[in-house]
């Protein structure tokens, strides 16, 4: 009896092992005849190529492992910004789709149909090449927000120059920890005594006041470095100082956000529509204000419908960010699965590492979203 149950599983396992074994042996043999070696030692070698944009210290004299890290962080950066922005935009468009106002409603649905149905790569090219050509050269760029310049070579903004940044950072973390425990305490009080604290205001206060104190007594100091126009040649200019955000990052973020927001908007619409009218009316009838109805009754239920498909969109956005290679944004694929693979010839190792990395990022996002979903889910008592 038991055997009958296990046997199919055993056979499947055997099958998988055999297939895997066959491919490994085959690859091994092919690599042998072509004199290709397998190993990860190359990661320690000097990369000897430079990367345009990096969140950490990097230059070509560092290792391939370091170049990998640069690419990974760039992927995480564009994914993170993209996820935040597309969620905000998606939520707005999704709610707008349900608006009784004809114009708002139709604009939202036009937006969704338009951006959802054009291939993402085309949109990336559009934002990069069409928008790029429309941007002014550095010397002609108008001042925006009093201190920044949007040019064909990127967005140049003032950059913060910190003194004792670590003290500031540690204080910020302490503030967050205090806020966490305060909220726990407030919740308990509410459950036990029905007492309601202005949780948000107090938290915000702690978050602002503690770090601010470090400026007064902690020796923390912040000044700004401003971008200044520099002439490279007769007709060629750039900006020096400040912070340069490459146009590749801007175009990619824009394209990913506008595209993914359409899907999130549809999820939001479906989520809100999924909650029965009766719920709203019942909540209002027991005296909750409209914002309380939304916060305490509608959203907790709608989110249960919204979150799982939206998690998928987060994963898609992260994976889609690898289209970066087309427009020279140095993400993981361009830097590692592109340049590093080409310069070392270690195709199998590098593709393996890259795949494992994307898998890990995807799993991490899924785990986080599942955790969040569980946390906000209505607990059946």
């Amino acid at each position, binding site marked *: 009896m038991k055997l009958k149950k296990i046997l199919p599983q055993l056979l499947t396992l055997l099958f998988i092992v055999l297939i895997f074994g066959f491919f490994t042996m085959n690859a091994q043999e092919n*690599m042998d*005849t*072509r*004199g*290709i070696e397998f190993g990860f030692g190359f990661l320690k070698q000097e990369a*000897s*190529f*430079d*990367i*345009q944009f990096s969140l950490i210290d990097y230059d*070509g004299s560092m290792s391939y492992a370091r170049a990998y890290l640069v690419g990974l962080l760039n992927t995480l950066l564009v994914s993170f910004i993209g996820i935040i922005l597309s969620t905000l935009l998606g939520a707005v468009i999704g709610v707008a789709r349900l608006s009784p106002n004809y114009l708002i409603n139709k604009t939202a649905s036009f937006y969704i149909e338009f951006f959802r149905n054009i291939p993402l790569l085309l949109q990336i090219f559009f934002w990069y*090449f069409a928008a*790029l*050509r429309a941007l002014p*050269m550095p010397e002609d760029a108008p001042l925006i927000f009093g201190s920044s310049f949007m040019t*064909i*070579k990127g967005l140049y903004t003032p950059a913060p120059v910190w003194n004792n940044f670590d003290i500031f950072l540690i204080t910020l973390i302490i503030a967050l920890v205090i806020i966490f425990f305060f909220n726990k305490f407030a919740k308990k009080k509410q459950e036990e005594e029905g007492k309601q604290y202005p949780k948000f205001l107090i938290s915000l206060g702690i978050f602002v006041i503690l770090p601010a104190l470090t400026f007064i007594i902690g020796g923390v100091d912040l000044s700004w470095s401003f971008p200044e126009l*520099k002439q*490279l*040649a*007769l*007709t*060629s200019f*750039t900006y*020096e100082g400040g912070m340069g955000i*490459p*146009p*590749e990052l801007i175009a990619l973020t824009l394209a990913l956000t506008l595209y993914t927001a359409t899907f999130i908007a549809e999820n939001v619409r479906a989520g809100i529509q999924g909650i029965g009218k009766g719920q709203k009316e019942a909540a209002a009838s027991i005296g909750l204000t409209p914002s309380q109805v939304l916060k305490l009754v509608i959203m907790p239920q709608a989110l249960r419908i919204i979150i799982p498909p939206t998690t998928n969109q987060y994963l898609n956005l992260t994976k889609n960010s690898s289209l970066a*290679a*087309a*427009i*020279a944004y*140095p993400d993981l694929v*361009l830097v590692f699965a*592109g*340049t590093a*693979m*080409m*310069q*070392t*010839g*270690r*195709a199998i190792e590098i593709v393996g590492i890259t795949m494992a990395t994307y898998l890990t990022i995807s799993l991490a996002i899924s785990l986080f979203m599942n955790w969040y979903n569980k946390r906000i889910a209505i607990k059946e008592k």
Partner: protein
Amino acid sequence: MFKYVKQLTSLVAMVAVLFAFTTETMAAKKSKTLKNTQKKGFVRCGVSQGLPGFSNADAAGNWTGVDVDVCRAVAAAVLGDANKVKFTPLSAKERFTALTSGEIDILSRNTTWTLSRDADIGLTFVGVNFYDGQGFMVRKSSGITSTSQFKNGISACTNIGTTTELNMRDFFNSKGISYTPVAFEKADEVVAAYDAGRCDTYTTDKSGLAAQRTKMSNPDEHIVLPETISKEPLGPVVRQGDAVWEDIVRWSLNTMIEAEEYGITSANADSMKTSENPQVKRLVGAEGEMGAAFGLDNEWNLRIIKQVGNYGESYKRNIADTGILPDRGPNQLWTKGGILYVPPSR
């Protein structure tokens, strides 16, 4: 009577089949790639995604260029028809994996012969069909006429996965200039970004610069600076591990170059069979057994010259007459002041 004719033809057919079979197995014993190529009926050749003069497809999908001609020469040699080539356009990043994974059998795509590529990653370079070096292109209006005018903060557009990326770093480092590399996967995007003003300079092989310039919205607005910052010997590449195939590709290229040296052209090749000079006769299959070692017939080289032409003809047709690089520079025969020098076919 009729009966016999029928029997005779079937006998002839049988012998022919048997013969074809034996020759095929003989060649096959020597080279798996050759066998597969003959079975498929076309040479699988990796080229660029469009580099005028080197490998470029017209609107009808016909490929031309000096890199293309190397593959055509091999097709003429092993299949008897220079047109039996299947071209696969590859970006710089894709090219080596396409070759090592067996998607193509020859990579003839302005690829620089370097130690690490030759020794480390399962490739074998068979020769050089264009001696080149890396250069820089700038907008004329910038007033820059030499790399010595480059300043800190300059941005340079280029392709990823190239020697260019590495040389550029060496160059700017040695000059102590800080620069922003903007590296794309595909050449068309490099050109478009530079053309739009994203970068102050565009750097790659000088041949590449000359070729890509023809694609810009206004070629006359750009100049290639005189400095050459590296050696870029470009040549065809094969997978490591098939020595006979490697030899076939090498000697197909050598044949084209040596044919020029001996004045053999596509027009006069047939008449050269009766030449007084034994070396000329060897190059047109009229003396010696020059194909046997490859598992080929004796006129393999004659077909190359007749169908593709010698190196000089190929250069003139693709690079000089198209105005890309009218001057042959180092890519002239050693007998005429250049450095093209190949071992003798004998």
